[in-house]
């Protein structure tokens, strides 16, 4: 029988418990979140005359945790109203309810005795066959099943979410010796398809995979940091995005996580392991002093960094390891970055960084060699499979390259020799692999991704890719056309994909050319077009640099043509002989949002941040976005609706540059269409699903829609409100005089010009012309150009 998850009980409502509850609510599950009953009344409860037996008091701990979670940022929930799917309760009154729950997740305090007491109760109350899992990050999972029933044991394992559960991809599955195979298979598929996570099966070893490797990496650095003579900002610069890791890099991340938490995890690993790196998990003296002084990071307002305000200016000071005082370190500068600046591909950047002869190179070699050695020695201890370690680091720590992926990028063969020279010899299986003539851990062949397996001593296809599509894997054999900015892939079954690969995937001439080409190709020889990519973001918008250059040089005619081209390309997405599916993820802003709005259907990843944000650069959406809002308003209007209010809702989405914090919010802001556009939670299956939908639209018979002349505009009826509103926001100092000008122009385009009769029907092209005219007029203003310049040169939104 197919296992179905309708109801999930989460036991323990701390940061992780509440976050896990929210994420199940995100995907539509009914959730029961419970926690302990408080021992005593709070002052507030006393003043309200409540007693310990009142429901309100008994549920206080769980209710407080959940509401704190719901208020936290970034939000654990796709949309606040989804939180209604969570019911709260307490262990005394509500634990019995788990009898009809499909999955019970334990997230209580990390104490084996307490967990065992809870599992004993759960064992008595749960229904036969329901899943029971623990979210422990440090306690042996095997030790928890002692004394449990057979059925409990078969359906029990560890499921380790990472904080915050909504955002971090990793989901470690830790089976015990008794866990049934079908439970593991189910969890792998379910966590990926339903929860949008990357499942990694881990052995029941201390800290499992990601925390073991990740903590090693941090502790190795903490213990050796003084050898390099590098400052904290320097190390963060070296260990940040340049090597494919988070911007918060090492020390800033440590501050965010909290030094006490890090030390707790490190101590735990030190006590429970006995490997060659055990000494590195010792807490260095300076860190002990910092702990004593409560310099724990963000939670105590100072850690490795401290923010101070001097003369009204914010300054970030950092610890000097020699004096343990906060100092203002100079801006980090490394000559090797001059060489890597222009290299977007991380795998190409890595060998240059490691070969550097300067301080950066010394640092990189030492820390990566240590990492390679440690990781190789952990196979097969923590995992039989190499790729699982990389998967775990990609998904749990946000490392774009896990240890073996990074090693591949710098060349395994040559590195091994260098590692030997500095006494960091890797595990013997690495030599074994090289001797077999296999010189990389991974390879792609015939659209399949292979990884070296140390027990069979050969490449094996990485499982779990069935039903998924990865452009990275298809890249070798399935490219139909490409220019510098865009690649057209053949996804098979008559579906092609247009992939952007510019910086932040901004849309410029190359992408416009590519999009037109893709529609031409699809119309000629294929069934449908999907627009998706595997960058960090779908698209940050139009490339404003091009607009700026033309405007500065006063090439008005050319600028007008460029804007027209953008508009025409968007209209080509809407009006072609084939279905066009946009599959955005991450940021889909400005032009990226306009592109989505002109597709036949949007299949958005749940983590899509969509918005028409042109106001920030002193413009209105000029690629058909403003027009499209007028079109959608027209289509939404029902007889007798209060039209001015409907107009205002749409107007404010653009006027306040509102960006959705999830794809679900994009419906409310008017960027996605209810009943047409869809959301998928799984990034892994995202493109495969988009392709299926494209095929479906094609196969049910797709006819190019006729161009529209029936858009009902409101004209003068709303213009009074626009003028009054814009003036009010300006008078209230919520916006500048220039914003007021933009707001008025936006209103005029969305109103369809100041036509006397409301509900006059106009054509799309008429609206596009109005939109382009307003856009061009704004481009001629100095203040708009200053805003664009600020974005280009400083990456900052200027308010002028």
């Amino acid at each position, binding site marked *: 029988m197919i296992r179905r998850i309708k109801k999930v009980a989460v036991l323990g409502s701390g940061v992780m418990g509440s976050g896990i509850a929210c994420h199940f609510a995100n995907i539509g599950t009914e959730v029961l979140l419970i926690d302990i009953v408080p021992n005593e009344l709070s002052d507030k409860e006393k003043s309200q005359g409540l007693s310990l037996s009142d429901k309100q008091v008994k549920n206080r701990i769980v209710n407080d945790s959940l509401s704190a979670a719901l208020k936290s940022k970034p939000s654990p929930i796709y949309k606040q109203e989804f939180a209604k799917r969570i019911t709260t309760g307490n262990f005394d009154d509500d634990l019995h309810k788990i009898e009809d729950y499909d999955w019970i997740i334990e997230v209580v305090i990390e104490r084996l005795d307490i967990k065992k007491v809870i599992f004993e109760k759960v064992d008595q109350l749960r229904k036969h066959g329901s899943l029971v899992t623990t979210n422990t990050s440090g306690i042996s999972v095997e030790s928890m099943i002692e004394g449990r029933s057979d059925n409990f044991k078969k359906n029990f394992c560890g499921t380790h979410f990472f904080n915050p559960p909504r955002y971090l991809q990793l989901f470690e599955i830790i089976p015990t010796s008794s866990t049934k195979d079908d439970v593991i298979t189910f969890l792998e598929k379910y966590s990926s398809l339903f929860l949008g996570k990357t499942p990694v099966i881990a052995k029941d070893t201390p800290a499992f995979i990601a925390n073991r490797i990740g903590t090693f990496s941090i502790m190795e650095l903490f213990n050796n940091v003084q050898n390099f003579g590098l400052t904290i900002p320097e190390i963060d610069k070296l260990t940040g995005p340049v090597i494919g890791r988070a911007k918060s890099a090492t020390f800033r991340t440590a501050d965010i996580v909290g030094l006490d938490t890090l030390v707790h995890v490190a101590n735990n690993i030190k006590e429970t392991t006995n490997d060659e790196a055990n000494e590195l998990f010792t807490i260095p003296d300076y860190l002990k002093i910092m702990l004593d002084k409560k310099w724990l990071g963000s939670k105590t307002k100072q850690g490795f960094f401290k923010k101070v305000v001097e003369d009204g200016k914010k300054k970030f000071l950092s610890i000097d390891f020699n004096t343990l005082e906060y100092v203002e370190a100079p801006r980090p500068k490394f000559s090797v970055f001059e060489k890597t600046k222009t290299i977007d591909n991380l795998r190409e950047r890595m060998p240059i960084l490691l070969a550097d002869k300067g301080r950066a190179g010394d640092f990189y070699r030492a820390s990566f060699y240590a990492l390679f050695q440690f990781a190789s020695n952990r196979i097969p201890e923590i995992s039989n499979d190499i790729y699982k370690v990389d998967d775990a680091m990609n998904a749990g720590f946000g490392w774009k390259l896990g240890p073996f992926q990074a090693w591949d990028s710098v060349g395994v063969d040559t590195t091994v020799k260098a590692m030997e020279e500095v006494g960091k010899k890797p595990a013997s299986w690495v030599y074994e692999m090289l001797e077999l003539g296999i010189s990389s851990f991974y390879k792609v062949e015939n659209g399949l991704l292979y990884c070296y397996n140390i027990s069979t001593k050969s490449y094996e296809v990485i499982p779990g890719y069935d039903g998924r599509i990865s452009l990275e894997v298809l890249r070798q054999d399935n490219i139909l056309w490409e220019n510098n900015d865009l690649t057209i892939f053949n996804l098979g079954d008559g579906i092609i994909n247009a992939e952007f690969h510019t910086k932040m995937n901004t849309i410029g001439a190359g992408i416009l050319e590519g999009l037109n080409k893709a529609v031409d190709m699809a119309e000629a020889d294929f069934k449908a077009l999907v627009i998706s990519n595997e960058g960090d973001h779908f698209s940050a918008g139009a490339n404003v640099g091009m607009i700026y250059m033309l405007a500065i040089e006063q090439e008005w005619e050319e600028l007008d043509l460029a804007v027209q081209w953008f508009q025409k390309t968007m209209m080509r997405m809407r009006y072609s002989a084939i279905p066009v599916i946009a599959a955005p993820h991450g940021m889909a802003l400005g032009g990226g949002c306009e592109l989505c709005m002109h597709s036949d259907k949007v299949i958005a990843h749940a983590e899509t941040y969509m918005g028409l944000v042109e106001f920030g650069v002193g413009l209105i959406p000029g690629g058909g976005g403003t027009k499209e809002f007028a079109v959608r308003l027209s289509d939404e209007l029902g007889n007798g609706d209060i039209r001015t209010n409907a107009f205002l809702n749409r107007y404010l989405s653009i006027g306040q540059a509102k960006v959705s914090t999830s794809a679900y919010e994009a419906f409310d802001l008017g960027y996605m269409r209810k009943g047409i556009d869809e959301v998928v939670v799984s990034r892994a299956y995202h493109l495969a699903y988009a392709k299926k939908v494209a095929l479906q639209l094609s196969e049910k018979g797709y006819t190019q829609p006729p161009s529209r002349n029936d858009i009902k505009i409101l004209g003068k009826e709303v213009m009074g409100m626009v*003028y009054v509103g814009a003036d009010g926001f300006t*008078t209230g*100092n919520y916006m500048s005089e220039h914003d007021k000008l933009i707001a008025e122009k936006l209103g005029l385009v969305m109103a369809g010009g100041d036509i006397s009769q409301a509900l006059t029907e106009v054509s799309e092209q008429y609206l596009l012309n109005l939109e382009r005219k307003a856009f061009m007029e704004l481009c001629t203003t100095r203040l708009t150009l200053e805003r664009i310049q600020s974005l280009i040169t400083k990456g900052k939104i200027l308010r002028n």
Partner: protein
Amino acid sequence: MNAYIVGGYRSAIGKAPRGSFRFTRPDDISASVIKHLLNDFPQIETKKIDDVVVGNAFPEAESGFNMGRLISLMSMDNIEVPGSTVNRYCASGLETIAIASAKITAGLADIIIAGGAETMSMINMGGWRMVPNPDVAKEHPKWFLSMGLTSEMVSKEYGITRKEQDEFAVNSVNKALAAIDTGVFKEEIVPFTIKENYYDNGKLQTREKVFDTDEGPRKGTTVEGLARLKPAFAADGLSTAGNSSQMSDGAAFVLVVSEKILKQYSLTPIARLLDYQVAGVEPYKMGIGPVAAIPKVLNHSGLNLSDIDLIELNEAFASQSIAVINELGINPEIVNVNGGAIALGHPLGATGAKLSVQILNELKRTSGKYGMVTMCIGTGQGAAGIFEMI
């Protein structure tokens, strides 16, 4: 003038949009107040009443359909008494008393019920469909400036500080709480039995409660507490939810009769509206409206400010109240002795009548002779009326 006020009542004032009257319609509240008022005058045959004049600032939706006429039908068991709805925004409820008095004085009528009703829970400031004339709005956007922003303009132009405003607000709340505690308003409030149907536990349920006490004033309001509130209308503004009038629901009505009726039914007059004037000011600082209206009414009536025993100055905002008091040199001791709109609420079109009912009772209690009701009005006007106790 020979038109006399012989009685007046009001409802308790509910907080909008989530207070006691949140689901109660303005016509229902009005009918209950008028029925209660007429109970005091069993000798008057209701068919003899010439008109019901109802003030309302947003006469649409629940306040639409010429609510005044419907209120007359709902309040009396006959169809003969007509009804009208009058709008002078926040002065509407005083305007109707002036209309009644003037008609009677002119011999056009003998008995008129005048007052006002507003339920801001149901109809927002600005109403449901905001459609200013686009040409005028473009040329003169400040004519349509939101009330909160006009308050900021007044703060700026008259140099009223945040602290002064917060102190004024706390003072208003304390006076109102004291008045409620000592039962000052008890006699003038008509208790209203609120019936609500609601959904709970999969079923339709009903509940009832008697609403008879103003619910606006917040106990424990302090200057320090108010200082923590964020600006409500402008990024760098001084007006907050704490030092601005509350949005409210309520109604108030008085009975105005001619000398002839007074004698015919041997009625005891309470007061007469001695004078009433309205004046225009710059719309962007509408809050100083009374600065124009008060001298105008004093001048016209021949009285001096020093003759006035009590003033009800509608507290649209602490900023404009302070500015008016300072500009005209009004003795703050005689202003809003039982608290003002910041504490008790401001049901726009009902406010003029509500303040009239309050001041007549307070003059009676303190044996005063002249009382003034004055307020600022949106789009730049001020109104001031002087009551003379008989």
